[in-house]
């Protein structure tokens, strides 16, 4: 425990800015993964235990596209689109068979795919750590805000995630397709009776969730190292996010992810050995005081 370091950081604006931005990028990446998880759960009523694999594939797709074309924008696009297609296939061929089945079955099918996907990555890209490297467009002088160092790429990452959050939030509440999705979450039988193809909606939601996780992976690729199995810790953390924020709530996922990101970045100063423990502790406190999560509805 190193409370002096924590107090020292809290009293210096430079350190405060640095830690807050690093907390924000952790939080924003977590948000993109968690919001897909919560969306899929909200509509399909299954927890996609293999969601971390989409994050992993997004990162690897982006790295390969960047190495082949040298274009950062294209890399992001390939990362997101590739995982969307993967999500669609995965949902239509496998997950659609276990809707309404025992939780055990759903977990087993996803567990099987966690094993398979990790090995597929190992076969295609190799078992060693890989890194995509920072694109040259972002290899510029970092910004100095109130004495703190902020790499410009961090701002892009936070911006993209915020745009995704706003588009999702407005899209789900205002647009026609958003209303259909919410209706399908509420009563799929009635929606299909109205002549809407619910299978298509389910596939689309799964693809959207996979795409968001893939986008998170692609955005993370320049700043994190890539390894088979990298998706699993992200999955656990984003699940903690959804538990804290409340399953099925987009705002909850955003708040939960940001809180967790800040806990991680400041916790690593004050409690270097217990950073992960702090997240769990926070989750337990939320669960005990409000079992449905901060923004969850009753009997979700």
């Amino acid at each position, binding site marked *: 425990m190193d409370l002096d370091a924590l107090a020292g950081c809290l009293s210096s604006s430079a350190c405060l800015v640095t830690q807050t931005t690093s907390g924000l990028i952790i939080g924003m990446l977590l948000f993109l993964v968690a919001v897909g998880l919560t969306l899929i759960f909200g509509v399909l009523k299954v927890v996609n235990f293999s969601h971390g694999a989409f994050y992993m594939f997004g990162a690897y797709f982006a790295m390969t596209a960047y190495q082949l074309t040298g274009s950062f924008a294209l890399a992001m696009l390939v990362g997101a689109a590739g995982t969307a297609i993967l999500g669609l296939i995965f949902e239509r061929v496998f997950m659609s068979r276990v809707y309404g089945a025992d939780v055990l*079955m759903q977990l087993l099918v996803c567990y*099987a795919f966690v094993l*398979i996907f990790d090995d597929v990555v190992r076969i295609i890209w190799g078992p060693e750590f890989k890194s995509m490297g920072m694109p040259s467009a972002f290899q510029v002088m970092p910004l100095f805000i109130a004495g703190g160092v902020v790499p410009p790429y961090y701002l892009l990452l936070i911006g993209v995630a915020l745009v995704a959050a706003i588009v999702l939030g407005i899209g789900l509440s205002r647009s026609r397709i958003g209303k259909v999705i919410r209706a399908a979450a509420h009563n799929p039988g009635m929606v299909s009776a109205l002549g809407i193809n619910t299978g298509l909606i389910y596939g689309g939601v799964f693809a959207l969730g996979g795409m968001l996780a893939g986008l998170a992976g692609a955005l993370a690729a320049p700043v994190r190292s890539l390894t088979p199995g990298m998706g699993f810790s992200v999955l656990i953390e984003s699940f903690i996010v959804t538990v804290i924020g409340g399953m099925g709530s987009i705002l909850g996922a955003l708040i939960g992810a940001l809180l967790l990101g800040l806990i991680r970045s400041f916790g690593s100063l004050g409690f270097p050995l217990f950073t992960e423990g702090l997240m769990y502790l926070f989750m337990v406190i939320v669960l005990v005081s409000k079992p449905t999560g901060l923004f969850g509805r009753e009997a979700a």
Partner: protein
Amino acid sequence: MTDLEAGRTERLLPVRGGVALQRYRDVLIALVAFVVLASLPLFTGSKALLDFVIRCSAYGLFATSLNLLVGYTGLTSFGHGMFFGLGAYGFGLIMQKLAVPIPVAFIATLTITAVVAAVIGAICVRLKEIYFAFVTLAFQMLIHSTILSWASFTGGDQGLRGGIPRPAFLGIDLSNHVHLYVTSCALLVLGLLAMRQIAQSPFGYTLRMIRDNAARASFLGIDVWRAKLTVFVLAALFAAMGGMVMALFVSGAYPEFAYWTISGEGIFINMLGGVSTFLGPMVGTVLFLLLNDTVTRFTEYHGIVLGVVILFFALGLRKGLLDFVAEWAARRRETGEGR
């Protein structure tokens, strides 16, 4: 819904006098099983076979204890492996640091496990299915990351090295391979017998009722939370026993023992053997270890093979092996009685 529920094909509570009879039968089967297993070294000198049985004991205790939660109570725990890891580490650490006789370390580890399981269980068992599964998983990851980061105490990612001291106790010398083998078999048989008694006791039937209809059980005056917590702690104890057998076998403890894949394997073993019978997980354990050993011999990518086998069972058969046997027996009994 799939019928992944233990005891579906059994008849209801045996009539008066039948309970005692069934208990004698179970004890008799356990005795015979132990004698057969323990006399194995007399017929074969194969160290590989004995090692295989020891590993089956460790995994079998773990998988069967998971079935108490999954099959009997309907609690899908995805973090049950944490108690396996806790048992291995607790036992190894006590033996290394305190140098007490083995039975003392055994009891002390069980006590620690009970306390930890009671705390985690008190938080988890209120939660509904998928939340329960993931929050138990989250606790598993917490324990795993604690083991990794507390390197000065647990050895970090290297695991507990330097071997676990195994002083002889009452003439039983666990550093002797045959002694270790017989002890593992004894622990397995005793553990299974104890779990069988739990499953067939009135408390066991309470658990089945909670699984089938928790609201009704609550109306009847059963404290559902307490019953679930009790079985959570009991199952944790047997899982820790499995972990201790594993720690004795490899003479150490490794972070993989507490990793989530152990829990995943446990769930898969239950699926493989079937959760509708008491011995299903045991059959699943033997199948799983055979499968695992065969696959790792031929390819380094055993995840893919294992994944495909899991998919085949989960999507294709939708049942475990002993489930089919139990159903077949039930059908035979029905037609037999109908005549």
